[in-house]
């Protein structure tokens, strides 16, 4: 299958990834991957059972519903690229 420039632009927009000069090479890679993966997309009703509602009857032990990592604004802000006080700073989102 072919992924043209318009489709690539649509994917890049949905994925929020600026492509630039990579676009062509990535499109070829995606075509190759899609061609390989399409083995399961064939229209074969005998291989398409109704989706089951539950994958496994698991009995994994659950932990108590207790928050174990308490909010720590200082630690969280320490990882942010740009802060102002207790805010994370980003470019203006609403145009004037």
């Amino acid at each position: 299958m072919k992924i043209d420039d318009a489709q690539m632009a649509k994917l890049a927009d949905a994925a929020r990834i600026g492509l630039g000069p990579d676009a062509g090479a990535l499109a070829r890679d995606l075509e190759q991957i899609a061609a390989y993966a399409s083995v399961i997309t064939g229209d074969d009703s005998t291989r398409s059972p109704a989706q089951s509602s539950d994958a496994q009857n698991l009995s994994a032990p659950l932990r108590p519903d207790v928050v174990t990592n308490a909010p720590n604004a200082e630690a969280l802000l320490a990882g942010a690229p740009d802060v102002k006080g207790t805010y994370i700073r980003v470019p203006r989102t609403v145009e004037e």
Partner: protein
Amino acid sequence: MNIHHLTALELGSLIKAKQLSAPEVARAFLDASAADNATLNAYTEILEESAMAAATAVQKRLDAGESLSPLAGVPMALKDNICSTEGTTTAASKMLGGYRSPFDAAAVEKLKAAGAVIIGKTNMDEFAMGSSTEKSYYGPTRNPWGKNRVPGGSSGGSAAAVAAGLAPYALGTDTGGSVRQPCGFCNLTGVKPTYGSVSRHGLISYASSLDQIGPMARDAADCAAILSILASLAVDTPHPPTDAPRPPLKIAMPTNHYDLPGLAPAVRAQVLKTADTLRSLGAEIVETTIPLLECTVPTYLIIACAEASSNMARYDGVKYGYRALETPTINDVFCKTRAEGFGAEAKRRILFGTFVLLSENYDTWYRKAVQTREMIKAAYDEALKACDLILTPVSPTPAYEIGANIEDPLEMYLGDIYTASANLAGLPAAAAPCGFDGDGMPIGMQLIGRPYSESLILDTLASYQEATDFHKKRPPSPDSMERGAAK
């Protein structure tokens, strides 16, 4: 006694008996790691200060008579997508360069409580997306068995560190084979536990319905000891064979798995010999066919990439991690950051995941993959009704040369053909050494079991490892790593 050749349990036993001290052991492994990391690039970060502090603290607890796990004081390496408050957690990506986690992953908390000493964070394919540890922002890791070979991936740094004697054991993560395949490439034993049995809290997500943290160590006994700490269920330490009759084990070999054109003859031969050894230990080997093998990797790719495209959306340059410069608008922050912060493979998988989730593609691709996953799971459940374990190779070939598949992503993905099914089906699976090829490169075999049968898998591997010595072989010393040579 070369402590770098000891298993984790052997070291723990010596520390408990006060024949060695935890700080002494930590020092030895830190020094080895620092000396050899320039060649192997197994670590993204060696945690000298915190490791020595932890070792000293554990020794105090031991000296005070506190009862700790058999692994107390034993150093370990941690794959760099598992959050730790020591050092950075980068997932080997520019996107998380320098990121310091404010919390420990649940697995790390449990190991620390048991007295583990984390000596470093290990290299990996970026965000666990890869099978060779060539896709790291920090450069490729080299296989201690052959410096021109890959160690496997994505937990290649962990595998290289343990194989080279730089750490007695390590944690890796496995989404499509990323613990098992590097173990196969580096002559180690490793486990992908039953999905859900080890907490993913603090594991940087790649594909949430497939990811699992697992141990990578020298033998089955070590893996069992590590799992007994990590897992939310009891995993018995394997028992060596006794004269008492053991219940006969039925081990299935799916013939269609052994007829793959891409399966290297040496791999096929060694896994068939493994079956002979297991038969001599009392197991009944039966032939079976597990259908849909040709659908395993396509199904895994579609589901993993779809989930990754969602999980990776959080890396937007806003709250943490890398942010591109010269971003006048918020859209520039997102798009330029993600263009610059992700490597090529991560972008490839995010875009493919986005593709299969587009509204016009959802039914044809993603829904069909989910249905096929159910069928693959049903096929394995059916097979495991008639047997106790399934025996397959870990990967079609031994470790290949660095750069061999870098330009061909599809060739890389095909390497997951034997391992991805256990992730899709949520089943436990373990890899262990079963021989070497003509170049002296390790070959691994895989055992898959029913949900929560880790004890049976590891017990079987322990019996196998009592009867063989492949797992005891060591790679050539670092200054002579021209080609693999079993010792």
